[in-house]
């Protein structure tokens, strides 16, 4: 459609300057509006701050029997975004007692994070059938590594002896243990 009196397209310096204004101006606007928004939306992905793992008391030694793994929740105060929780479930561990020694294995499957269950004498993941032996070693299935062991210690005396665990979480789906959070 050509309107009478309308200048033909693409002629003159003024048109070129106007085009620059339109394209450059639009780019500036998009950058100005979307830049801060993208920065905010992506902020959590760039946050590398990490809280030091603490020793948390999770069970009494007398609650455990030799050779019988027990699943116990890990409860502690924690912060989720803006909220401070005084006592919240952080996760759970399998505790394995051998007389006065206790080992802790994270219940989180190193494959993709499902909860590992006790299967026969060992452990298994109900999602993708990764299987682990009674000590947490990988036997079969897609899990890229053994179950994640956590540091433990026994404190106190006599009947009051209790177990503390240094609770951490690890990245899933990779062969090496990589601490997160």
């Amino acid at each position, binding site marked *: *459609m050509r309107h009478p009196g309308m200048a033909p397209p693409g002629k003159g310096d003024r048109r070129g300057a106007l085009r620059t204004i339109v394209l450059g*101006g639009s780019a500036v*606007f998009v950058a*100005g*509006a*979307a830049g801060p928004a993208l920065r*905010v939306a992506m*902020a959590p992905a760039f946050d590398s701050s990490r809280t030091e793992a603490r020793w948390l008391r999770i069970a009494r030694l007398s609650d455990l029997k030799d050779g019988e793994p027990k699943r116990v929740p890990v409860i502690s105060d924690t912060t989720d975004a*803006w909220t401070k929780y005084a006592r919240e479930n952080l996760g759970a561990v399998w505790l394995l007692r051998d007389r006065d020694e206790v080992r802790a294995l994270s219940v989180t499957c190193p494959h993709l994070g499902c909860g590992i269950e006790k299967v026969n004498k060992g452990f298994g993941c109900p999602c993708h059938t990764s299987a682990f032996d009674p000590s947490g070693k990988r036997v079969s299935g897609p899990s890229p590594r053994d179950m994640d062991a956590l540091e433990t210690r026994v404190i106190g005396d006599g009947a009051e002896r209790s177990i503390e665990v240094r609770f951490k979480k690890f990245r899933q789906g990779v062969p090496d243990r990589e601490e997160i959070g």
Partner: protein
Amino acid sequence: MSWLSRMGDWLDTRTSYRTFLAHALDEPVPGGARWAYIWGSVLVGCMTLQAITGWAMMAYYAPSATTAWASVEHLSYCVSGGWLVRGLHHFGAQAMVVVVGLHLAQVAIFGAYKAPREVNWWLGLGLLGITLGFSLTGYLLPWDQKGYWATRVATNIAGTVPLVGRFVQSLLQGGPEYGSLTLTRFYTLHVGLFPALLALLLVLHLLLFRKHGVTPGARANMFKVDRFYPAQLAKDVGGVLLMLVVVAVLAFREHGAPLDAPADPASDYPARPEWYFLSLFQMLKYFEGRLEVVGSVLIPGIAVAYLALLPLIDRASSRALRSRFLYLVPLFAMGGAIVALTVMSVRADRRDEAFQKARVLAGKRSEAAMTLAKCGLIPPDGPLAMLRRDPETRGTALFQEHCASCHRLGELGPTPQKATAPDLTGWGTAEWAMSMLEDPDAAQRFGQTSYKGEMISLVKPPADPKKAKTFKPMPEADRKLIVAFLAGEAAEAKDPQHDAQGAKLIAQRCTACHLFRGQTDDDDSAGPELAGWGSLAWTRAHIANPGTNTTYRADAMNPERKGHMPRFDDKLEPDDVNLLAAWVRKKARGGK
């Protein structure tokens, strides 16, 4: 041929996008490109800005009564750049209202509402309504005092509409009261329904605009014709950029957007709507009782109806301003009234000392909330519970409500002349106790209370000349021992045997009237227990009930003692009594 143009060819043979683009951009602008036409595009710029910043904020916002304020606080102060995004959205919203006004004014003045463009005028009015709907719903979302109280007024107005009011109100609120369901509803409107409606009406608005083209001014040179791109679009982009700069400057200057203290249904808050609704707010002041609905619904309704009917009323073909002046007079009157009412509202508030005082208090409460919340310190039951448990904030509120009509404490309370109870500033210190021993009837002590004349000074001779003859002032050294003991009691000294000499002196010299460790020579006297005086337990017991011998005696509650201190254990929860006692002790010693 570059790879870019080859890719363009590939796409064009499959989509004909170049034809679409050419059609969109080559739109003729009869009379030539003008700055007057930019407002529609600037509005689209505003909407884009709001959409982009809004999406980013949606990634943080949590709409519920316990999380909304917390999530906004988190975004504003704990997420890098969060304040800027919120600031851009906040001032972008205000820019949008201003630009809508300018766009409407331009269309009205150019006569662009006239046939055959009536439907587009109505679509524009619909878009105006949606814009105001965005403002109203967005104002509530932070769930702070400002948004909460202002929006409550707005939904209450909706509730006054005859016949449908109650239904509309509970539909908006998600029930008879404000709460989490109000927030989820307002959020749904703000980020779901309104954007969809806006997009729909905007597309129709633009399609009709393209169908009819711009409306040149009555005296435009019709031989001059520009293309939309780049001639008009360059001006439009200039306008959009100017808008962004203004919004960004405001956002930087205010370092984001204001956030008041968390919404508190129990507080008294000087509610005001956002500035562009102030004219409506001011108008409500002139309609009382049953006439209320005239100011709240009828007059705004008539104004909207006139706008809607304008293209049907003004049917002359001429777009010359002079020939349409009569039809535009109501519009100018509306604009004038909006400006006048807004100015009146602002001036009334500026002169209103009580309002200014309330604003200062609200500001302090907001600061207290920010200090407590920090990053990740809000309890699961929300920021209001956090404030309620904060001794500082809660203590101040309790003191203001229950104590400050009689007692002074620092800046709080009545003027010294009007106080009818001892000034608590310094209460529990040795200096305060000493002033009591020396001049108990001073204006700041018992002088203006029902205990005036009941305690004798230990340094001034009594008024009765007979008694004055035998009066011997207590030596300063003894007085110092006594007040040292009392101050130790008030400070809850660890050693129970502290200042034993002072305790001995009290047992010898004060129990003629006072109780001391439960002992007294005069069971009918009003003199209070001095053991533990000013301690937390003493203070708590005194606030709960001053007449139990733990502090003062039964006589303290004697109705003949006009204006005596009342008991509070029947009004306040034990937790509050405890908190108030701790707060008063701390404040009295100048603790912050």
